[in-house]
Structures are given as C-alpha cells and as structure tokens.
C-alpha cells in the first residue's frame, strides 16, 4: 500500500511537470512567431511629418516598353539623402500596387540612398528581396533601372547618374540581365509617355 502523502506528492509533481511542459510549448511558439516576424521586417521609411508635396515619378509600362510620367503627393523630409530614399520608396510602392504595370515583390524596398560628388551621383541601396523577387528579362530589368534613374533625376536637379547596389554590395546583374556594375545616367534615353 502506497502511503497517501506519497500519492499526493507524486500527483503534485506530475501536475507541475505538465504545467511546465505547456509553458515551454507556449514559449517555443512565441519564439517561432518572433523569428517569422523578424524575417519579414522591411526597412521602415523614416517617419515623415508635415505637408505633402507633388513629386514626379516615371513608372514603367511593361506592355508597351515605355515610362509613364506621373505626379504623386508625398510627404518628404528636407534632408537630401532621406528625401531621395523616400522618393524611391514611393516609386517602389507604386510598382507594388494592385494592377501595377510593372509589378515587383511585396518585400522589395530601398534601404538607403547615398548622395556623393556634390549630389551628382546617387548610390541606391536596395534590399535583397528587390533583386531576388525581380522578374528576369532585359526589358523588365532595364525599365526598372530607367524608372529609378529618371525619377531621381526628375526630382534632384544636378543629379547626373545613379548606381544600384543590393544589401550594401555591388552585384553583377539585377536579375540576370541589367548590368549593375555600371552607372545609369539620369537622362538616359527611353521613351516617355
């Protein structure tokens, strides 16, 4: 016959073990969710306040192979590099809209824009998703580069050329075609509607 106090002790210990197991499972799920969230984190545009202003963007039309000039409203910071980053961010957001004429992956975004050489050269640092989720083809990749270069050129007087890097590093091509080792002129010849 097992003493009554021993039975009670074992029962309490088993209950504590089950509770700890449940708590451990809960912590594991929480950690997994946290990791997932971190993987999806996109670079967040700097908080911008103040009145919005009109900017010119040139969005690609893949079907016709040309750029379409549009005016959109955006709240822009005054500091030039942040301003350039926000303009590129607005442009990419346009590509990500439903029924976009130049779709790109939902996680694609700009990380930083560096202005060099008295603001004549812009280095646009995009995230890995921008390149990895970009569709492959000469025309679609060239349109992306032309859109970036012409849009920044339209909003920064004196800016002459841009170069795109991915996650802070130079890359040979965007998605197998457009050359990322070279600079793109902000007045490069492309049909604009």
């Amino acid at each position, binding site marked *: 016959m097992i003493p009554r106090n021993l039975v009670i002790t074992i029962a309490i210990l088993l209950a504590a073990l089950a509770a700890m197991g449940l708590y451990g499972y809960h912590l594991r799920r929480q950690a997994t969710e946290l990791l997932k969230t971190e993987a999806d984190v996109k670079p967040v545009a700097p908080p911008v306040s103040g009145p919005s202003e009109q900017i010119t963007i040139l969005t690609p039309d893949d079907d016709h192979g040309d750029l379409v000039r549009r005016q959109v409203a955006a709240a822009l910071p005054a500091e030039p590099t942040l301003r350039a980053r926000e303009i590129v961010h607005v442009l990419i957001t346009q590509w990500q809209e439903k029924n976009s004429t130049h779709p790109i992956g939902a996680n694609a975004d700009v990380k930083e824009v560096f202005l060099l050489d008295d603001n004549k050269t812009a280095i646009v640092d995009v995230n890995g998703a921008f390149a990895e989720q970009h*569709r492959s*083809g*000469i*025309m*679609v990749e060239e349109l992306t*580069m032309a859109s970036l270069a012409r849009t920044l050129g339209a909003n920064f007087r004196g800016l002459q050329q841009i170069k795109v890097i991915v996650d802070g590093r130079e890359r040979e091509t965007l998605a*197998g075609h457009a050359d990322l080792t070279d600079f793109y002129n902000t007045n490069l*010849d492309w049909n604009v509607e």
Partner: protein
Amino acid sequence: MALLFLLGLSPGAEEKKLAVYTPQTDYTIPVTDHDGQEYVSLTDLVDPLGQATLTHKGDRWKLRLVMRSNSLEAEFNDGSSTAKIRGKKVQLSHAFWTDGQRGYVPVTSAPVLMLQFARQSASLRENSRRLFVGDVSTTYSAEMPKGSSDKLVLHFSAAVNPTISTEPGHVRLTFNNEPLIASGVNPQSFENSPIHSSTFSENNGAAELNIATTAPTQAAFSDGGRTITLTASLPQVAQPVPKPATPAPAVPATTANPTAPAPLGGQVAQAPAVPRFVVIIDPAHGGDDPGAALGGGLLEKDVNLAIARRIRADLDQRGIAAILLRDGDATLTLDQRAIAVNATHAALYLCVHATSFGTGVHLYSARLNPDVKIATRPFLPWDTAQSGYLDLSHNLEASLMTEFESRQIHSIPLQSGLRPLRNIAKPAIAIEVAEPESVPEGVENGLTSIAYQQAIANAIGAGIANLRGTLEVSR
C-alpha cells in the same frame, strides 16, 4: 584554340561531342560519361527537332516534343533502361539517369530514339560519335585540274563551311556541321605536286580532310560553298642571269617574295588564315545560369539555344558561316563570352535572349556614356570597346528591323547596358524574343512555336545578308 582555351578546355582534354545530322538541321551536343558509358542529354538530343519539354514526378520523367506538324510524348524512368515512346516500349542499351532537371540517355541508344522521334532510320558511327538521321550525307571528290599540279579542287555534293587551319606540312579542313563521309579512295595521293595527298578521317563528332602539302597553301571557296580550291605557292626557281661584266658582290639566293614568311623546317611555310565572313551567335545564359523562367517549366537558356541554332541554319543556307558560342548547356561568364568573340575575326556578334514579357522582338545596341570618346586601335578600353562600332551596330539593328517588319513581326529598337555588348569590339547587337502577337492554336507557349522561331531566324539571316557588303567593306 582561343575558344577552347577560353571555354576552359585544353586540347588534351577535349570535350566529347555527338554530331547529329538530320534533313532539317545539323547540330552537335555534349557527351557525358556515366558509369563507364557515354550519355547525352535527352533534351539536347531532340530539342532541335522541335520544342522539347522534360518534366518529372518522382522517378517518372515525361518528355513532350512539339514539332512542326505533330507532337509526341515519351516516358522514361530514372534508373530504368525501358522507355515508352508514342505508347510503344523502347529498350535502351543502358539505364536512363537524371541530374537536376536534365535526363540522360546512352549515346548508343540515340539511333533507336531518333527512329521514334524523327520517324526516320538513323545510323551511329560509334567511334567518331556521328549520328546520321535519314538519308543525309555529303560526299566529295578531290581532283587536280589538268595542267596545274599546284591546285587541288574539292567538289562537295552540298555547300560546306569547314574550319580551316594550317600547320607545317598540313592543311586541315574540319567539318563540324556537315554530314561529310569518305568517298572514293582514301587516302588519295597526287604525284608530282606539292599537294601530295588528302586523307579523310572522323573523330569526336567531326569529319576532317587532312591535306598534306610541302608548300604554303591557300584555300578559296566558290560555287556557293560546294567547291574549295587549294592552291600551293610553288617556290620560284632562280633564273640564270648573264654573267656580269664586272664581278658583283655575292648575294644570297632569295625567293620571289621576300615578305613571305620563312619556310618552316626548311620546306613548308604556314599558310595565311583564310579571311571569312563569320557571324558569332551567342545563346545567352546556359549551364548553371538558366536565365528567366518562361512558364510551363521552359527555361530561357533552352529557348535561346533553339533560336540560335535556327539562325545558324538559316545563315548556313545563305552561305554565311556562323558559330555558336555555346552549342550545348555550357556555363560561360560574360567576360569569357566577350574575350572569345574579340579573339576571333568575326564580322559581327549577335546575342540571343528570350522573354515572356511583351510581344515581338526587342533589339538592343550598347548604351554607352555619351561622354565616352570613340576608342581607336590598337588598345581599346574594356568597358567601352564597342564605342568605335556603334554606328555599324545601329546599321545592323536597322537592317534586322526592316526584315522583321516585312514579316509582320513587331520590333522595337532600344539601348541597353546589357553585357557583354559594350565589351565587344565588333558590330554587336542583342535580340530579346518575346511571344508572337498571335499564338498559333495548340501551342502552349508562343516562344516554342517552330514557325515563329523560323520566321525570326529568317528575318535575322536576311538582315545580316543584306548588310554583308557594308560590313565586309568596314573590316
């Protein structure tokens, strides 16, 4: 040799190849060794017959081949030597195996497979790896015209386009794309001539005529590529001269042409390279770089190669020699491509891409910084080597556009930073083939339409042929 070096191959470790000759097209494909047997990629083998798509579920691999007039399906099982083609069981000599997305069949089973796929009997010359499908063969005869012992005339039953190389005592004509077979006496000897024999041999997917000669020899093409005349330069015999009235200083005896290269080995001089109009076609991507995914499991690298082969066949028919930078699934970097092209005396460079976006054909010339000065010889900056050739590249683009227009194929001229265009020191353009404006019935992907691919190849062939005179003058 330069190409071999650049492709990472040494002459001692020559890549194994299988040449396939069919009534429609001739092509060579790489051969892989596996379990002591020689294998070829199934898609490489049949793709030039139409448009091949290989898909799989587990170990079961399905090949769908869409040809001009019909289509067929075949089933292979990884590790099995039994296949099913058009619903019939076919026994392979060794097991089918796969690597990644590619399936391989034994070379020795190629005739059986071609009988099913092409519906024509095929014979394989195993030792030389040459596969003749249907009644295809080119014969030749070699003769010396009466009264000219320094000439050897080779007559071929069809137009040929061999690679000609010289070395002391020999001129080699290598036929990589022609179903040339030996005919008559082999080897054939010629008496009382500096050209004293011609020997036919075949090896590694190519046929070769080796002309033994004791004098510098030049080759000339005529009759639309059906005749090659080899002319040996006979050394001039010193003529007896009247004895001078006064003793002259001793002068060493010379040959008639003091600028000719000195004879090698005291007997034979190296013949000069034969100037030819050669087009280099670059099927973009390949090997580890599949290019764009074009839908339905179709890879850009495979479509590029199929179109490039059609362009080569069209140019061949027009008597224009064309070389593919890759004629199989090889990996080449952009720099390797540019170096290979610049190392040749090719007349122009054409890069072939395909896309699932838009319609028609996009033509690209190099986009160079407007401030770049036109590069002049002898040294060209790598990044702007194209600058001196842009006008000719634009002429080529315009000539191709005219031909596309006449065939109702929509085309757009554009500029691109696409490499290696700006590194090419020759007229150079890239084409990106998009889907046709109307897709033929029964064709899943317009890019695989044989009629469409052929129309594009015809337009390009005609555009290049029209500009040939201008390009030759500019060289």
